[in-house]
């Protein structure tokens, strides 16, 4: 049986299913209990599972994430929410120095089956600190996994896999496309393995890698592209560990690589993907790999935000430039 749902609803459904399945799963955060979160991602959970397993916390990111470490040590499977990724910094200490390290530090005694949910990304005309894309700050830390879904189907299966994972997973939610479109999603529980990219569309000329809201923009760009350019579209889905095998297989075939991301350019995930292309597919490249990203500036307030965003028009331009590249 299939049901049509948004990405937001898919995450909500996954949380319901995993809480139903496993008593040790707890969901909490600022406004995440009674209200169901400022975006309503956790709506209905407190009613279904009670105030002990689904609860509001003080505004206290270090306590939200630090307590998750303790809960995991004592056998729970916490799924804390950070209300916006731009506010995770007071809790980043816990992520970088404890969540990522406790399993190694205790030589396997204490596993950290924690899934930290956080909405991220721009394009929603929000206040300062509500629009960042900070994936690099997590991907750089050994011991963490990082997931970013771009479709309702992936969102549900990845959330199930994240919660079931015995390693800590940062689950970044592209809030701009929370309700942007619906998709048929299986009603029964399923998982999508972490660390496996998806070839969204087969192609021969260019490999385009994008995730989160940028995948949505990339699909729009390809739909509108008049030129006869065959683009292979890849969504890594898991940013860390990233499945570069799938990407490199594609790059070796097309010889051209375009990475699109919403985060700023320097040391973004695009830099890592292109580095690996240089290491593994150098002699198959037919053009210098390209990063289409936000410039290295602070996300402007809404009136100027378009200067920061990557959109379908910019993606189309880069595809055309790369397709017609000549030495």
């Amino acid at each position, binding site marked *: 049986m299939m049901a049509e749902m948004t990405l937001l609803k898919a995450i909500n459904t996954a949380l319901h299913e995993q809480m139903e399945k496993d008593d040790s799963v*707890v969901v909490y955060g600022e406004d995440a209990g009674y209200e169901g979160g400022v975006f309503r991602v956790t709506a209905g959970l407190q009613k279904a599972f009670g105030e*002990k*397993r689904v609860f509001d*916390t*003080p505004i*206290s990111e*270090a*306590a939200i*994430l*630090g*307590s*998750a*470490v*303790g*809960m*995991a*040590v*004592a*056998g*729970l499977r*916490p799924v804390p929410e950070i209300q916006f990724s731009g506010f995770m910094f*007071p809790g980043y*200490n*816990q992520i970088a*120095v*404890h969540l990522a390290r*406790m*399993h*190694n*530090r*205790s*030589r*396997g*005694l*204490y*596993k950290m089956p924690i899934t930290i949910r956080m909405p991220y990304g721009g394009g929603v005309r929000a206040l300062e600190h509500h629009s960042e894309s900070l994936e690099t700050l997590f991907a750089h830390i*050994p*011991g963490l*996994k990082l997931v970013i879904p771009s479709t309702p189907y992936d969102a549900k299966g990845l959330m199930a896999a994240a919660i079931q*994972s*015995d*390693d800590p997973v940062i689950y970044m939610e592209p809030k701009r496309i929370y309700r942007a479109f619906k998709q048929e999603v299986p009603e029964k529980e399923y998982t999508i393995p972490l*660390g496996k990219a998806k070839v969204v569309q087969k192609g021969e000329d260019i490999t385009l890698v994008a995730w989160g809201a940028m995948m949505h923009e990339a699909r729009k760009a390809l739909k509108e592209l008049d030129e006869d350019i065959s683009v292979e579209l890849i969504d890594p889905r898991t940013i860390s*560990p*990233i499945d*570069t*095998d799938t990407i490199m297989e594609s790059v070796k075939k097309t010889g051209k690589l375009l990475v699109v991301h919403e985060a700023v350019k320097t040391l973004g995930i695009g830099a890592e993907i292109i580095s690996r292309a240089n290491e593994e597919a150098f002699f198959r490249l037919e053009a210098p790999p390209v990063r289409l990203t936000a410039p290295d500036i602070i996300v402007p307030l809404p009136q100027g935000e378009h200067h920061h965003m990557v959109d379908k028009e910019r993606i189309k331009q880069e595809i055309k430039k790369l397709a017609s590249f000549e030495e």
Partner: protein
Amino acid sequence: MVLDNFKDWKMETFSILDKNGKVTNKEKEPKIDNDTLVKMYKTMVYTRMADEQALKYQRQGRMLTFAPVKGQEAAQVGPMAASDKGDWLVPAFREMAAMLYKGVPLQKLYLYWYGNEQGSHFGEGSHILPVNVPIGSQVNHAAGIAYASKLKESGEAVIAFIGDGGTSHGEFHEGMNFAGVFDLPLVTIIQNNHYAISTPRSKQTKAASLAQKAHAYGIPGALVDGNDPLAMYVVTKAALERAKEGEGPTLIEALTYRLGPHTTSDDPTIYRSDEEVEEWKKKDPIIRMYKYLSNRNLWNKEKEETLRKDYKKEIQDTFKAVEKLPAPTLDEVFDYTYTEMPEYLQRQKEARKAQAKSGGDR
């Protein structure tokens, strides 16, 4: 001045034994069985000897940097004696006495400070967290364990340790506040040893006591003579009972003194006077516990001599055994990054091994 109505309050320090081991607070003297009293004392002596011996090894270049505990044994042994086996110990990084009392073998502790992560694997069901280096962050872990205990109705409480410097940290506040909001079974013990490395307690906070911070969380805050093992036992026992009754956390400030350096890299003569240290030596917790036990005919000079002789050999043998243990293998330092090795990391490991074989690594 309108603010005169909102002046600070004074707190009395709770104690049972004076520095000579004499009971000054008969009414509150706990009824601890003789075996436990002796175990408390023996753990304090064992800790002291292991600590001093480790310092010698460090000065000989055989031990790496570590954080000596000398002088703070009572502040740790009292609370652990008051706790049950299922209760959790969440240490900072100077809790050797607490860890030994709760059953961690000295070999593990030596191994950790010797530079090997295996020293932090205390075994399934040990209910002890590893040494926590980032100041104050362990209070949130303790709050999380306490939350799990409450949710699962396991009846387990949590004892967390922190230093005077740690109370300046936001993580201390966030953890205590979180525990207060949910009435969590947590007992947080501040070992106020008067210095955070070189920075005196007076530069951490304007507050008259650290214990009074509890009032902001709506919980009791007790100021206790931390060199008095019986006082620490009594107050912790009451706090644990309160925790297990579902009444919430308690904050305890243990007034104590670090007789040694902050770590072996520290030179305390730069920031404190010999006179001050000498004054605190007179309040040594081991002296007063020895006298208390002697007065009750539970201990004497012969027992002391035998004990110290046995411990000396045991401690030296333990360290020699640690010196002989193999260093972590290349596999081991990769294999615990995740619960299952991701493919890319496996490749990095193999590449590293290949480098090692070709002489790039030793």
